[in-house]
């Protein structure tokens, strides 16, 4: 398994084009290139988190201070952030853009990722957070821009699910590399 550098670049460029200048992130396998791109970009403030929920507060502060931001996290990080999403971002109407790697979906080899994958979409629905899956690099730029537009117009959280098809170039099956967290 190799994480797609090319598609990570497409996502990163789309975030930049939509005005994002601060990214808070907690690493996981699928996000490594995105985080490195943020690290290497002098125009981007990268905030490495201890736990994802912090990112909700950081994005809320950045938004009120006039800087567009986004969160990069695994779906388990989204699970860990839910109180912050509800009692900060939703309560205070923060246009929180979340890019969530959708681990535990079809093709998942890591047994420990499988429970989270099964509940992610249902929780987004329950929280009434609009979301789309990103699986085709050809539509990433448009979807990211649309997500940003909706977040801004609604003053609410919006999510993009980063799918296996987009993030992973499947190898020949020479052994599954264990994913993060």
């Amino acid at each position, binding site marked *: 398994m190799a994480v797609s550098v090319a598609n990570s670049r497409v996502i990163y460029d789309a975030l930049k084009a939509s005005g994002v200048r601060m990214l808070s992130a907690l690493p996981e396998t699928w996000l490594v290139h995105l985080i490195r791109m943020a690290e290497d970009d002098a125009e981007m403030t990268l905030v490495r988190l201890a736990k994802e929920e912090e990112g*909700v507060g*950081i994005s809320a*502060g950045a938004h009120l201070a*006039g800087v567009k*931001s986004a969160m990069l996290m695994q779906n388990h990080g989204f699970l860990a952030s839910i109180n912050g999403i509800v009692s900060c971002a939703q309560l205070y109407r923060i246009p929180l853009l979340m890019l969530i790697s959708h681990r535990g979906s079809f093709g998942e080899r890591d047994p420990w990722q499988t429970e989270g994958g099964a509940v992610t979409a249902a929780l987004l629905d329950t929280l009434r957070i609009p979301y789309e899956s990103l699986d085709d690099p050809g539509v990433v730029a448009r979807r990211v821009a649309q997500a940003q537009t909706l977040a801004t117009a609604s003053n609410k959280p919006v999510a993009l699910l980063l799918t296996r098809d987009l993030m992973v170039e499947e190898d020949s099956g020479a052994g599954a590399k264990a994913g993060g967290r």
Partner: protein
Amino acid sequence: MTRADALRSIYPALVDRVVITIMGAVAAELQSLGHRPNFFYLQHAMGLASSMGLGVALARPELPVVVLDGDGSVLMNLGGLTTLARYRPRNLVHIVFDNESLLSVGGFPTATSTGSDLAALAAAAGVPRTVTVRSLDAFAREFDAAVAARDLTTIVAKVEAVGPSAYVTDLALLENRFQFQRYLAGRR
């Protein structure tokens, strides 16, 4: 030292600063001294006031930011101390009112009542300046020193476990939020 007296002692210095508070007694007591558009009260999301302060401080390094935190909230986001220290916003003063209890929900004792030392935790997390104060004089002095030092500082103020008679104020949450955003936009 009461938290209300501590707030009163630094209130004149807060007038021109960006202030983010936690919920409950801190928010109500600061409002009772006089609400200002540069004050934001995070009335829920316990633990995230310091993260919001970090977001504002990183987004606007030219603005002086004060976070008014509490022991219960810091204990909910101890990892946030390491993030705060990692990015070391020099424009942020982090004040933790430590009454050793969860006052607004019945006064149950927190772990600081059995010896957990929040200033030591902040120092161990990498916050460059940390101090614990137990008197009004020391609190006001350390606040001035933190402002003068222009470096990330955590001041843990040991305060009595007393609060206001009511926590809900006339200021609507969203009114506060949009007013605060406009204030920050106006400080460009």
